């Protein structure tokens, strides 16, 4: 038996095909679409909350780029339309430290987690999000811990050599880098920043 579609069904199909041609690429938007999408997003999906959380976390992680902490902070500040003095004033972070941070020459030993959290809050962030991985990478260099036995290190301050570079140079070739202790120091820094952000966000609420 060959079923011949009714003229009206063909008409509906043709019309919807035209809508598909018009809007299928996602460049043009059908009218009154917000409500319809809201309806679709309100339907059940069968996804448990933990799974949804996991997928969301993965999606944020996938966004990470190879940009440094300094570059990310600088582009954020500029997009917000703030100058360095304004951000410095609001976050109580010295302008010199902010400049160094944005130029990736700052020493995290000079910027405690609370101060860093305040800076992020001033830049409109309420959580670390996609900044977490670059911050961890930076912190693992700056907060690197060396085992006991290294003793105090002395070195001359030289023009154009920052504290991070000087410390790295002095420690070069000296064994005893403690990976576990470094990880703990990085975790503590990240937790400190996160707690500060949460504290500031809850104050606002």
């Amino acid at each position, binding site marked *: 038996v060959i079923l011949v579609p009714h003229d*009206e069904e063909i*008409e*509906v*199909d*043709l*019309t*919807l095909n*035209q*809508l*598909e*041609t*018009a*809007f*299928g*690429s*996602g*460049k*043009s*938007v*059908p*009218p*009154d*679409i*917000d409500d*319809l*999408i*809201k*309806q*679709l*997003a*309100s*339907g*059940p*999906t*069968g*996804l*448990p*909350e933990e799974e*949804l959380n996991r*997928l*969301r976390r993965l*999606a*944020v992680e996938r*966004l990470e*780029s190879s*940009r440094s902490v300094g570059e*990310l902070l600088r*582009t*954020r500040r*500029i*997009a*917000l*339309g703030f100058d360095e003095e304004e951000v410095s004033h609001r976050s109580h972070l010295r302008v010199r430290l902010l400049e160094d941070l944005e130029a990736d020459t700052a020493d995290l030993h000079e910027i405690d987690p609370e101060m860093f959290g305040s800076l992020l809050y001033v*830049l*409109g*962030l309420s*959580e670390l*999000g*996609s*900044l977490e991985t670059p911050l961890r990478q930076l912190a693992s260099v700056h907060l690197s811990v060396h085992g006991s036995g290294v003793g105090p290190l002395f070195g001359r301050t030289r023009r154009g050599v920052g504290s991070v570079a000087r410390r790295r140079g002095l420690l070069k070739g000296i064994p005893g880098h403690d990976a576990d202790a470094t990880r703990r120091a990085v975790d503590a820094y990240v937790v400190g920043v996160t707690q500060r952000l949460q504290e500031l966000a809850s104050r606002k609420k």
Partner: protein
Amino acid sequence: LRPPVLPDDRWRFWLRLLRGGDILVRGQIVEAYFDYVLRALVNISSNLNSKWYSPLPHPRVLELANELTNIAFAEAFAHIEQFDETQSALPTWIVLKGRSRLKGIVLKEIREASRQSATDNDELTQRSLSGQLDDLATDPAEQAVNRVEASEVARRVNEVLQAMSPDHRRALVLAYMQPPPDASAIAAIARDLGKSPVAADSLLRRAARDFRSRWEELKRRDELQ
């Protein structure tokens, strides 16, 4: 399960940062709207799968919808200059970015699964084999021509839709969002417009007739000009 997540207006502020070249805001947008976009794309993908008598198991539909969601965010960020906030909300546009990849990702797999399961539905097999639902051009020149034509068609379709009555317009857009129109789409239209399925079906047909007559009128007018 979490309650339905509805988008708020934070995207309006974030849009400015996105356009200003900020990278960190992408994380904020994904964090805020991931659930919304994923839920919408899961439902769109599930509707499509149902239409084909569900050849894909639900967990696979969820995986594909998740893939669509990630692509949707990436494409939205890469082409943010195309977004027009007077036409839709940003989360809506991101969902539509994902929907635009439905054929290449979800439908492709549905068709493959349908073929492998030796479906007993001749009509669907015919449609899948004839490529009626698959208009993906592989030739770059053909793709370019298609893009230009699509933008012209979009202009005309929008003009026609705007001239139609709100009920007719809504019925067509609802049917379009639940591809292709079947009992579940009719039920969705009926629910949305507070009508019986029979009345919704009739409304959709009238809306299509109305659209076609206005379309022909517009074509004649454009030809005269």
